[in-house]
């Protein structure tokens, strides 16, 4: 142990932070298991197991075990939760192994990977098992993701449609009784004050009463988890905030005003609450290792990921657009880290008439 300073430390350790993130995901994962039953549990367990085994094997080879830092469990959990409940178990297994071996360890492990491991594994799965990941019901069957249902409904719809939620109603997508009562209450007690009216369906999206990936549905629980992480300073608020702001603006402007009705219809609420956007916003983008290290960089990175998520979603309509956007933004992180770091202290200067660097321009308050 060194006698050199500092002599004490913040409570946070790498391991504690990873475990804290994993812990904050558990309520949302639990909701998914409750809603979809044992298949969902198996998928999550297989993803976590595959990630842990991969990490363990690498630890054995490197003779330096790294399982205790919790990052393998976290990556596995993220991948498992982003899977729809109907995929075969080989999908989460392969995605997790890919994430650990290729994305994480081929770059030297935790902190060496410039690419978000979980997002990498997920995108790999979306490419390899595209139909499975979207679900059997692209044509509007009940087990499809809610997003695929909207897209399917749009293709069969005739005449004017009322945005994504209207489309869901048009094809008879169910509204839960919870949604009905909460929406009624909100409309009667809260929203009348501002003269607004919330149509049915959004509360379902917020609470997770729609079909989709196992752990992405319970937006409310993910939100609580993230608030806890931000409050305990495990993750920074800048990335999710910038992500949301940019995604909302772009969805409103391009998905609404520019391209009008139909799939997007400028419905920020629907498109934030559905299809795993929140999952990417809260849990993939703010990844400690692959996100930028300075504040301005974080804001730019979040904003970029938000805009790209819209783009991939508008043209792709598949879930996973968030993960893809995060991966693309990962490639510019080194640039953001270098270009947007704060100015070093004491480097703002002015030259006096003799050309000698003297004082600081503009900074001093006049006596």
């Amino acid at each position, binding site marked *: 142990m060194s006698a050199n300073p*500092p*002599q004490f430390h*913040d409570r*946070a350790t790498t391991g504690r932070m990873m475990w804290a993130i994993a812990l904050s995901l558990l309520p949302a994962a639990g909701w998914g298991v409750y809603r979809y039953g044992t298949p969902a549990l198996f998928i999550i367990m297989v993803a976590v197991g595959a990630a842990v085994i991969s990490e363990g094997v690498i630890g054995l080879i490197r003779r330096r075990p790294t399982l205790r830092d919790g990052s393998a469990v976290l990556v596995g959990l993220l991948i498992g939760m982003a899977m729809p409940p109907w995929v075969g178990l080989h999908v989460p297994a392969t995605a997790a192994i890919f994430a650990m071996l290729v994305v994480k360890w081929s770059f030297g492990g935790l902190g060496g990977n410039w690419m978000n491991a979980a997002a990498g594994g997920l995108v790999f799965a979306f490419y390899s098992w595209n139909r499975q990941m979207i679900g059997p019901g692209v044509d509007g069957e009940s087990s499809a993701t809610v997003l695929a249902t909207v897209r399917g409904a749009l293709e069969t719809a005739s005449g004017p449609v009322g945005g994504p939620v209207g489309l869901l109603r048009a094809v008879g997508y169910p509204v839960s009784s919870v949604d009905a009562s909460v929406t009624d209450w909100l409309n009667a007690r809260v929203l009348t004050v501002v003269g607004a009216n919330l149509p049915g369906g959004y509360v379902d999206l917020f609470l997770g009463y729609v079909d989709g990936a196992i752990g992405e549905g319970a937006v409310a629980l993910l939100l609580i988890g993230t608030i806890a992480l931000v409050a305990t300073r495990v993750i920074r608020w800048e990335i999710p905030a910038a992500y949301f702001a940019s995604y909302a603006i772009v969805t409103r402007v391009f998905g609404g005003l520019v391209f009008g009705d139909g799939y997007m219809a400028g419905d920020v609420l629907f498109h934030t609450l559905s299809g795993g956007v929140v999952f990417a916003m809260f849990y993939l983008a703010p990844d*400690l290792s692959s996100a930028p290290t300075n504040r301005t960089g974080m804001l730019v990175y979040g904003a970029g990921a938000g805009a790209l998520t819209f783009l991939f979603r508008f043209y792709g309509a598949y879930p996973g657009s968030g993960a893809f956007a995060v991966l693309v933004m990962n490639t510019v992180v080194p640039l953001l880290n270098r270009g947007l770091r704060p*100015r070093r*202290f004491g480097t703002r200067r002015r030259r006096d008439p003799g050309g000698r660097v003297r004082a*600081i321009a503009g900074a001093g308050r006049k006596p």
Partner: protein
Amino acid sequence: MMRTATFPVGGLYPVHHKHAAHRRAIRNAILPAVSIVPLRQSHGPDAELCVAPGDRVGEGTRIGRAVGDLCAHVHSPIPGLVREIRPVTLPDGVISTAAVIDLAGSFDRLGKVLARHEWKTLRPGTLLRLIEDAGVVGMSGVSQPTHAAIDATAAASCRWLIVNGAESEPYVCADHRLMVEHPAEIFEGLQIVERLLAPDRVAVGIGADKRDAMRRMRAHDNDGRRRDYVRLSVKYPQGDERQLIRAVTGLEVPSDGHAIDVGCVTISAATLYAIWEAVVTRKPLYERVVTVAGRGVARPGNIKVRIGTPIGGLLAECGGVTDPVARIVIGGPLRGYATTDLTTPVLKYTTAVLVLTAAEVNAAPIVGCIRCGRCAEACPMGLDPAQLYKLVAHGRSGDAVDYGLFDCTECGGCGYVCPSRIPLVDGLRNGKANR
């Protein structure tokens, strides 16, 4: 006039741990039976020894004569006999010659009310000589002989004189108590320095957590001169010279320059008190207030203690060590050094002796950097410590210098926040040494 200020880039809010000591009055330590007085009492060379074993010394007898501007006179803190001269290792690892003095004989000053000398009629040169004779040095942080610092800056034009009452290191509250209990003396010390430097403006910066100190200091400001009282954020390292100047004046000390390049001089409350003692009571600097704190010590508090007192004696006086101890720290927890040697003496710039338990240290195994960016966020100098550390580790200290290695003030903030416990400050120091 009062305003609140801080520095813009970086900084952190470490757990402050000050509640244990900062409300209790300063206690006087029992005199040490043996005093170990190193001749290096500032960040400069050893003073020249002017006693020999067997010599009888009085309280305040000069035992080391300053050589050059980086060195200050050293005085005997107790009356007694010089037992031996031997090398000791100071907390930062530097080896210094020390005089070991056994307590004997009678006291000239202890327990007596010292006569107050009028200073307003004295010439600046005389004032400066009094400060020099008393061996006053900067008493918190980087320690420089005060007379030399004042002398060097008196020639340049001093736009700002800033009193440093930030004391942003966790645990440490010695200056806080001094400001609360001796505001009149500190204020008079300030007047002496104002006389020497003739600054355009004077500011007193006090940490926002020391409202009582602020109140007391302002209450004694009664000579009609305009002074800015600045409430400083509790952010660390607000007490560092560059961050203090930035907060109070908005000026940035250039990366390759010194405070005086932007016309600023800073001086801590404890140093002002020592100047007051030197000039008004003609007492050499041979005792100071030290914060003794940490969960491992039974009765934490601020103790007025003779320089050269072994820390073991100081701790015994505070009820001894209770819990299983993880570290004994000399100085603040972010800049200080750990030691296991209880004979390590208190120096003129020893602000604190901390006994930390494992729950306070939060040690953890060193693991790989996860590139979380916390260190860069904390760095008050706008550096990327992780990157500098990697460059140094790969033998590319030259590149690290281009990225600001020498801007690093070794504040320890990066090391405090790093979740992977990477020894960033060690690494950066190595880089500076082996550039």
